[in-house]
Structure formats: structure tokens, C-alpha cells
């Protein structure tokens, strides 16, 4: 995950250089693989949620609103949130009086690969390539793409 900088520090410069001039990327492209691994992404929803928080680094939303913004069902979003929270990429504050939760992207932990990831995903082709890669990985692992995890995630409210 993102909290292990040594894992991808050697290839970061390469990622940044390649992504700055990227035109088209294939799911098997080493850059796509590097970015997905560096971010620790497992599902397409993880990617889209991360991209949403990179555009909106401090939000106060209900779970339903967050799901509506990223376009996945509540269970899937809850699982992805758990992943990002567990990786320390995201901080969440609850307020029991209202349905709003505050999510703050901990940019400092992620900034080495976040910008290259954002640049690649700035085009439909780039984003689709990464989503395809994630789906293919899920298929190889025997889990259908988009199939929500049945784990109950900490703090996530369906």
C-alpha cells in the first residue's frame, strides 16, 4: 500500500516522466501495473473513489451522497472506503448528530504517485485501462469484477 514508499520509490521518477506525456495506455502497460500496485488498488471502485478524493480532498458527505457521486452501490463504496482508510490515505471523522462524515485525503502519504495516477486517469482511455486491469486481476483471483466484498467495513454505513 501507499505507506510502503520503499517499494516503489525506485520507479517513481519513471512513472512521473511517462505519465506526463502519456497519450494512450494499455491495461498490460507496465505503467498501469506500477500505478495500481503503488496505490494498492484492488477494485475499480477503489480507483474511482481515490480519484474523487483527489479532486475533493476535504469533503463532508453522507454515505449515500458519496455513493451517488462516484456511481457505485453503498456496499462497494463502503468496502473501498475501508481500503483507503486502512491504508492511511484517508481520514474520516464522524458526527453522530448528522449523516455527514468528513473525509480528508491525507495527501502527504500519497503524493509521490497520486499526481501520475491523476494524469493517467485524466483521459477516458487512461482511466479505463486501469479499471480493466483491476477487473482482470479480480477475474484471475476468482472474484467476479464489481462483486462487492461481503466484509463489513469499519465505520461504513450502508
Amino acid at each position, binding site marked *: 500500500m501507499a505507506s510502503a514508499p520503499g517499494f516503489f520509490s525506485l520507479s517513481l521518477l519513471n512513472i512521473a516522466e511517462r505519465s506526463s506525456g502519456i497519450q494512450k495506455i494499455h491495461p498490460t502497460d507496465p505503467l498501469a501495473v506500477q500505478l495500481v500496485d503503488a496505490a494498492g488498488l484492488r477494485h475499480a471502485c477503489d480507483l474511482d473513489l481515490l480519484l474523487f478524493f483527489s*479532486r*475533493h480532498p*476535504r469533503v*463532508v458527505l453522507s454515505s449515500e*451522497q458519496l455513493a451517488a457521486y462516484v456511481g457505485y452501490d453503498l456496499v462497494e463504496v463502503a468496502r473501498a472506503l475501508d481500503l483507503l482508510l486502512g491504508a492511511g490515505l484517508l481520514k474520516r471523522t464522524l*458526527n453522530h448528530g*448528522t449523516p455527514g462524515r468528513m473525509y480528508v485525503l491525507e495527501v502527504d502519504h500519497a503524493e509521490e504517485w497520486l499526481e501520475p495516477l491523476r494524469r493517467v486517469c485524466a483521459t477516458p482511455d487512461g482511466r479505463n485501462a486501469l479499471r480493466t486491469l483491476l477487473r482482470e486481476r479480480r477475474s484471475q483471483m476468482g472474484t467476479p469484477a464489481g462483486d462487492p466484498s461481503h466484509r463489513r467495513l469499519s465505520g461504513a454505513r450502508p
Partner: protein
Amino acid sequence: MPERDLVKTGIAGVDDILAGGLLRGSVVLVEGTAGTGKTTMGIEFIYRGATEFSEPGLIVLFEVSPDKLVRDAALFGWDLPELERQGRLKIVFTTRQVFQQEVQQADSLLLDEAAAIGARRIFVDGLVRRPPGNGDTGRNTPEAFHLLAEGLQRERLTAMIGVEVAASEGPGASLPEEFIADTVIHLRVEAMERAAQRSIEIVKARGQDYRMGRHSFSIVDGRGIEVYRRVQAPRELAREEAAAYDTSTRVTTGVPGLDEMMNGGYFLGSTTLVVGITGSGKSVMALQYIAEGARRGERSIMLTLDEPRAQVLRNAATIGIDLNPSIDKGLVRLVYDRPQEIEIDRHFLQLEKMVKEFRPRRAVIDSLSTYGSSLGPTGRSFRDFFHAVVALMKEHQVTTLYNHENPELLGMSSVMGPFGVSSLVDNVILLNWVELADTFRQALTIAKMRANAFDRATRECEIVNGQGMRVLPRQIPPDATRRLAFWEYFSLVARSPERHGHRAAG
């Protein structure tokens, strides 16, 4: 009277029209249709607070994503991510529904965020105006807005709230929210012929003075919002009183022969209108006036709307005046402003700034007719503008010539035609062509000079290449062409010159 705790917005010109700033803890509605500058104003309010007044701030967004806001702010040189890193700013994205619920909570996440950085200001972008009676009994009712205002007030935050109004509705129709808010600001983009002009109007500012009316503003790349107080806004009485001119000090005209006609020149701080058809020598007179000032070491401004700077310098050279050394020495400022679609409030503010900073003794405005073309001669705009310029120049004791093109070829039936501002000036000089025999000859008449006995005769003048204009003596000996002096005629300016005792030669 206790001193009021004013919050300066820091936005250029806004604190001026707010008579110093906003009262701390105010809830300010900034209303306008899409594209009127609400978001820019709100961001600048927060940015200036954080950077210039050590007041951290919170920005709450509903529609614009924070990364777009950061990108747009960068165009003005505002580095919002850096402010976030320094803990002086937080940008929060939420929905209207959650926001309304949050600020009503005693332990609101949003207000906790504000408190965490010691925020003193908040900007909420994108509340939507709900006209009364639309059946909305939920979160966008006046009651909900009242609760919002209470929540903000509890935290002692000075709040600016951007309110989107429909283009069909426009700001102006009073809504219940306006009664609850402390200050209401309307932003507009108004059609001016085929152009558009931004305006800002403070329609309410509870507990404080403000300058009423619609003031112009611009959104300037690299700087942000700049508000230009409308030129018609009344000035302070003390400034008007300072405008009385000194009747003991004369300012020389630079035109040989003219000082004699005026008993020594213009009074210091006086206003002189030079009227004539095109080519009658108005600009030449103006250039000589400026050059005379430079020769005496006096600072001068020449504001030209008719001719670009290079053209003015070239024209000056043809009459033997090289203005460049005086410009280089800082004695002369030659300023050209394009007359097309002139924004009169901005233009006046720049002129006022220049007069205050440069402190000229002499000034030339060339020409009033061009302002008339921009503002329209018949409405109050032109007269109010001219009045403001005259007051400004008098207050600073700047002796000013205003050129005005009169369309009449021979003589004049009216000094200013439809403009009707000659009563505002101290002196009027008419430059005319008079047709005698087969020749147009140049005539100069002082039609008005306040508080001074002057030569009322119409005198011949001439412009000579390399030398400029001079007023000829009244008695001139007939030259080789047997021309007679003007004094031998009457009705020169009345378009029917006749020689005493004879019909004029024709």
C-alpha cells in the same frame, strides 16, 4: 461612540464603497446570475483575509470541485494549496443538505474544521435562491437560512455567501434571505450597446455606512477583483470646499500673445474649455501649454483619447516641441486611453490615482467630445463625469485645459452643443475659422473668464510649422497679399463678417 470592529475585505475598491469594511460577524449575501463573479469575490475575501490580515478562512463548495477552484485561483496568483499547507485555509466540498444540517449542530464537523485553524472568515459558494411561494418547505426556506445565519454568528465568523439567481429573475427582487442577512451585495453583468460591463451594488449594509449606486468592477488576471467607485458618487464636502481656486497665481498658457489677452494666463486650479472645429488648433494649444510647463519645471499630464501616444509626439515635433526629454525627466506624463467602450469608473479612478501620485500642476484632457461619444451627450452620465473630473482637478489645484470639438465649420451658434457643461468651467476659449475673401483665417476669442477682466476682441492667430501657434497683435500692417487685420471687420464669429463701412471682400 464605540469603535466598530470592521473586517477589511482586502478586495481593491470594495472597502472604499463599504466605508471601511464589513462589520465583524456579518452575514453577507453576494447575489448574481452565473458568471457575475460571486465565486471570485468570495475566494478573494478568504485569500486576502489569510494573507493580508492574518485571518484564516474556510471555503465551502457545493458544485465547483476544489481542484478547479485551486486552478482558477492560480490565475490570480493565489496559491490556495500553500495556504492549506500553512493551516490558514481549508476548502470543504459538501452538499447543501449536509451543510444546512451541519451548521445547525452544536458540534458541527464543518465548524470544528473552522475552529481548528482559528478561522475568522467563511465563504459558502452556491446557495440557490428560492423565490417565496415555490412550495419548498424544506432546507431552502428562509427559516433554514435563519438557522444558518445563527450558526455562523455563534462562531463569530464573518461570512460571505454566494447566491445564484436565475438570469430571468436577476438580483433586485427582495427575498426573505435579504432581510435576515446583514449585508446584501448585487453583482451584475450589464449590456452596454454590444459590450458588457460588470457592476457591483451594495443594497443593504446593516449598521454601517456605504456608497450607494452601481459601481463598476473588473476581474483582472493576476490581480483579482478591482472595484471602481462610480464617478457620480458625491464627494466629501471638505474636498469640494478645497476646490476654490487661487486668484493670485497665474499659469502661463505657452501661446505667445494669449497671456496678454488674459492678463497673465489662467488662474491656478482653474478649468478652461477650448472649443473649436477639428484642425482649428486645440491640440496645438494643448501641446504648447504642456511644453511651457516643462520649460518651467512644472509637472504636467496630457490625457489623450483621440490620438495614440506616438501620434501626439509626432504632431508635437512638427511644431518644434520634443516632449521626449520632459517625459524622460518625469515632468510630463502622456497617457492614451482607447476611447472604444471606455469604462468610465475605471478610467476616472486611474486618473484620480495619477493626479494624487504625480501631483501635476497642469493637465490637458483631449478631448471631451470623445467622452461624450462613449457616455452619450444627453444623459446625466457625461455631465456627472465631467463634474467629477473638474472637482478632482480643482481639489488638487491642477490648472486644466479641456478640448472640445465643435462641429460647426464657421463661427459657433453654441459653445458645447448638446453637452451643456460650459457653466461648470471658469474659462472658455473659442477657436474658429473665419472666411475672408478666398481664405480661411484662424480666430481666437476668449468667451468667458471668471473673476478676470480680459481682452474680448476676436484675434487672429496662426500656426507655423516648427514654431506652433501664436496670437497676432491686434494691429497688424497689411502684408503683401493686402490682408486686413481682424479689427477692420465685425461679426467675425457670427459667420457674417463685414468690413466696417463696406461689405467684406468676397
